[in-house]
């Protein structure tokens, strides 16, 4: 269901454009994550370096997504918000249960080469990439719909 046209067009447009940008950013991060884990698997990079590149990207992604949810909340986009809530909850859970680390991030170079964890991280990357991609098109559709119908 597209966003309701009853919304102030201005706000919606802003929101949609912003969302698009952000969605792209997140996609990029997921993409990067997938590539990164693939590199690890194929023996390219030292896990320490890889984790050092990936870890600083985790929090921004989560914060952007959270910011997103707040915007949807402000715009009273209940459906979109509902779609994003599970991921938000997952992010919170994931960050709460991260390994003991002093810096920000999720990935621990000493455990990342464990096949289970590597496979999990890779799967997580794929799923989130798919989710962000779909939501990107959904937001795009919402924006166009609003523009056209106003």
């Amino acid at each position, binding site marked *: 269901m597209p966003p309701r046209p009853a919304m102030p067009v201005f706000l919606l447009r802003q929101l949609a454009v912003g969302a698009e940008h952000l969605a792209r950013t997140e996609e990029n991060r997921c993409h990067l994550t997938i590539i990164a884990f693939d590199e690890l*698997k*194929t*023996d*390219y990079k030292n896990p320490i370096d890889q984790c050092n590149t990936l870890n600083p990207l985790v929090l921004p992604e989560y914060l952007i997504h959270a910011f997103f949810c707040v915007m949807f909340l402000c715009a009273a986009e209940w459906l979109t918000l509902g779609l994003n809530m599970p991921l938000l909850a997952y992010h919170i859970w994931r960050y709460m249960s991260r390994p003991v680390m*002093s810096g920000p991030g999720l990935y*621990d170079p*000493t455990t990342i*080469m*464990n096949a*289970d964890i590597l496979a999990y991280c890779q799967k997580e990357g794929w799923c989130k990439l798919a989710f962000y991609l779909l939501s990107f098109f959904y937001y795009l559709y919402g924006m166009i719909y609003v523009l056209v119908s106003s």
Partner: protein
Amino acid sequence: MDLRKLCITKTDDQHCPVPNQLMHSSDGQGYSPSAPGSYSHQMPAKVPPHQSSGQFNYGSSQIASQLNNYQGPGQILSRVAPPSGSPVQQVGSAPQVLPPVPPNSAAGSSAGSFGAGPPGLSSWPYGQAPASHPAGSPTSHVAHMAGTAPTQPPSSLPGNTNPPGSYQFAASPGGPPLQNSYMKPAPAPRPVTQPLPPVHPPRPPLGPPPVSGPPLIRPSTLPAAAPPNSSVPQALLNSAASREGDAASTASDGSMVQNSYDAIEGGGLMATTHPSAATPNVNMSRNVGYSYPNLPPGYQNTSPPGAPGLQAPALQYPDGSKPFHQPPLGPNHLTASMGTLSLQQEGLRPVNLLQERNILPTTILQAPVPNLHEDIQKLNCNPELFRCTLTNIPQTQTLLNKAKLPLGLLLHPFKDLSQLPVVTSSTIVRCRSCRTYINPFVSFLDQRRWKCNLCYRVNDVPEEFMYNPVTRAYGEPHKRPEVQNATIEFMAPSEYMLRPPQPPVYLFVFDVSHNAIETGYLNTVCKTLLDNLDLLPGNTRTKIGFITFDSTIHFYSLQEGLSQPQMLIVSDIEDVFIPMPENLLVNLNENRELIQDLLKTLPQMFTKSLETQSALGPALQAAFKLMSPTGGRISVFQTQLPSLGMGALKSREEPNQRSTAKDIHLTPSTDFYKKLALDCSGQQVAVDLFLLSGQYSDLASLGCISRYSAGSVYYYQSYHHKHNPVQVEKLQKELKRYLTRKIGFEAVMRIRCTKGLSIHTFHGNFFVRSTDLLSLPNVNPDAGYAVQMAVEESLTDMQVVSFQSALLYTSSKGERRIRVHTMCLPVVATLSDVYSGADVQAITGLLANMAVDRSVSASLSDARDALVNAVIDSLSAYRASVLSVQQPGLMAPRSLRLFPLYVLALLKQKAFQTGTSARLDERIFTMCQVKNQPLVYLMLMMHPNLYRVDNLTDEGALNINDKTIPQPPILQLSVEKLSRDGAYLMDAGSVMFLWIGKNCGQNFISQVLGVPNYGSVPQNMTHLPELETAESIRTTTFIAWLREQRPFFPILYIVKDDSPLKSSFLQNMIEDRTESALSYYEFLLHIQQQVNK
């Protein structure tokens, strides 16, 4: 140690990579076989006459530095073969030919742009690469291109250009090493140049005899599939172009350094044609599509799309291989042995555990023997070094899942060996695609080619490998020591070094706070160190240094010319710096007196110290800074919880909650030590931790410093020089062993396995650098490792699989060495075979490792449940799918009859037990030991051996060095086996109990214990007196023999009925019930109930 050394040196100056020339500047002496003219007839292009006159040097017992072998006048051979020497006879057999000018110069110039280039270039003319690898072949084929009609369809051009383009995506982010570009065209031409891949089976058949057939036949069936001749120039251009691109990306992300490091062992950039890093790149490009996301690196060349590539080399050898009848050698009998797969009937016979009362064998359980032909088994690796949980490998992951048994390896790679063949050779023969070292389980297709047993690629036998230094015969590559020994050590040439081998560097870091001085450990340590200063492994380059710390850090300048050591105190622990770094680590030989002075005065220097704080973190940082330029070993002695500066910890132990399995702190509270350990690992520094502590010291956090830097942890609970004298002796003995044992520096270990298997998880103390590479700044002979494996692809068309571990290290003498172990195991298709080949000790060992991980990541109770479930699952799977007749009772395959007992033992072990007052540090120390001990010691710790010692006889005794060592039978661990009129010795690995029954024979008490009667046996007796009686000699030699076999020193406690240690003794009675754990019989009933559900 008797090292048998074989040295084979080939004159190969002109084409050595640059660093090589340093070592090989002049070489060749001794044996010089006549030029094998006869072979040049058979393999004209491979043995051009001017190359065959290599000189060999063979010394059967050289102990001196191997560099000596390179001395002497050498004959310098020019390898710049004129192009005319090439297609003399056959079209397809010109691999030795030097590339003609244009491609050669192109390769040369591009190779010059990166470090690893020259080696690759140098071995080109050698012909290995071109001969068997399409990727490497361009240059060589150009030579005879004119002679052969270009069979190549023009479509090969797109074939070449396309792949790099389409794979660009993958290549750019990773910044693959430059050398990869050599390989890039490799996968591309295959589909085009071999138009007939579907005709052939995707994987070559394994059984060697059949294998030698196909290459002979194929050429005739595949005339058009000749080498990708016409594609050469394009390929070359391509590779050059993509190399440029790669160079840019590499530079930008700076991953080059690691790559080249990785490649040193695994890759071996040099010595052979293609940098190993090349292979991953191929993977990479393929993986973008995620069609083979899980293939281990290095094995993809031969995965189905690459399979035609296997035939390509065969095609190029039609003529060379014809005249050869394959010499009979080990693996050839594989097929025969497979036919006689007689399934170890005895191993299959089910056992009803509930009925079989005396299930424990009375002698030490031996590892099961893999069901291989005896000729192969004879060559197989010693199970003490390399052991697999399933000696019959299941064909598929489905079958493995059905069996519910873990598949994995247990390694003890650096074990002290009495017999170890050492080979010195200028080229180490390895598979060109997966970098496997040549081993007894490869198959020789003919005298000139061998087939890798891990990736099934056909490789050339280098010229010098044809000469067998043992028999001094030519043309017997299959009788070389490399092919006759599953465990072998290579002297690595300079290509295996990133930097000159480091000197042995030892740094000792002592805690000198008030608490530490109180325990009096410093005295013992300094004295032991003083006594063993000459025995420290090393050479004239050995360096040593000392740091002490309390709330400040004290350095000791041992500068030459000083009359006494000078102490430098750094009190700024927030930002540690190193005062005068050059004099803190000094040469041991040149400054021996100063060092001895320091060791003598050190224990007295702090006796009046009232400082109670401990700044361990900053001291470690300082030690790391001091060591990082060289690498080496840091030995840290710590007696309390670090309380100052970085890495300060808080007490987390709550004594009241010890009994509950929940909420115990097994995870580190800070990642400071882990991060520091990773830094250390990067600089080739290992940290060994000696924790001598009465109170809680948070070993869970502190242990990380050793765990990830490949060190070891020693824990002496409640160490005190007066109150706990047995601990002093233990520390002394173990420290002596620690100081004098062999040590390997800047080591890496890679584990390879047959394509289709993959490594899942590693267990042990190290840092995992990549999917199959462990970084071990130090490696010591007392460390064990475990690896979980997975079956990724079906192994249906294989009869055997192999595993190879290669440990590259710098010895204390400054030599770079590679120790290689190879193990070969049969593949089976049925569940009953899998069960019959199960190795219950290895399974238990691996499960223990997995349980430690589980208790850290989840919880202790989770881990315990998982252990119990492992038994239940495997036994119910056995019941459901193997047993045809459902019998009552609890049936187990004979091979697994001890499985429930061992798992119960694990559950009652300190690491996993509940409901007792195990201290947290003690529990964590046991977990560290589970992870780091080799299987033999681990088994003893889990399931102690119980012997009756009051009636020892010489019957069946061992005779070692004129000493008769009695061998009493092993008893079950149950109180019912104890009799009041006997004396029993329980050997629990790191501790021994001698239990004296109340009515023990007077004879034993007086003759062995040296006291008149039972009542006068002292309460805290920990030593047996050396008496001149036969009984005493028997008992003491037996105990001494048990102690000798392990690297740690078990304390002997003599336990009477009323002594306080009786409870610890009884706790090890695994088959009995304790207040919180089931007895063995109850445990069996519980399992039966679950299995029969």
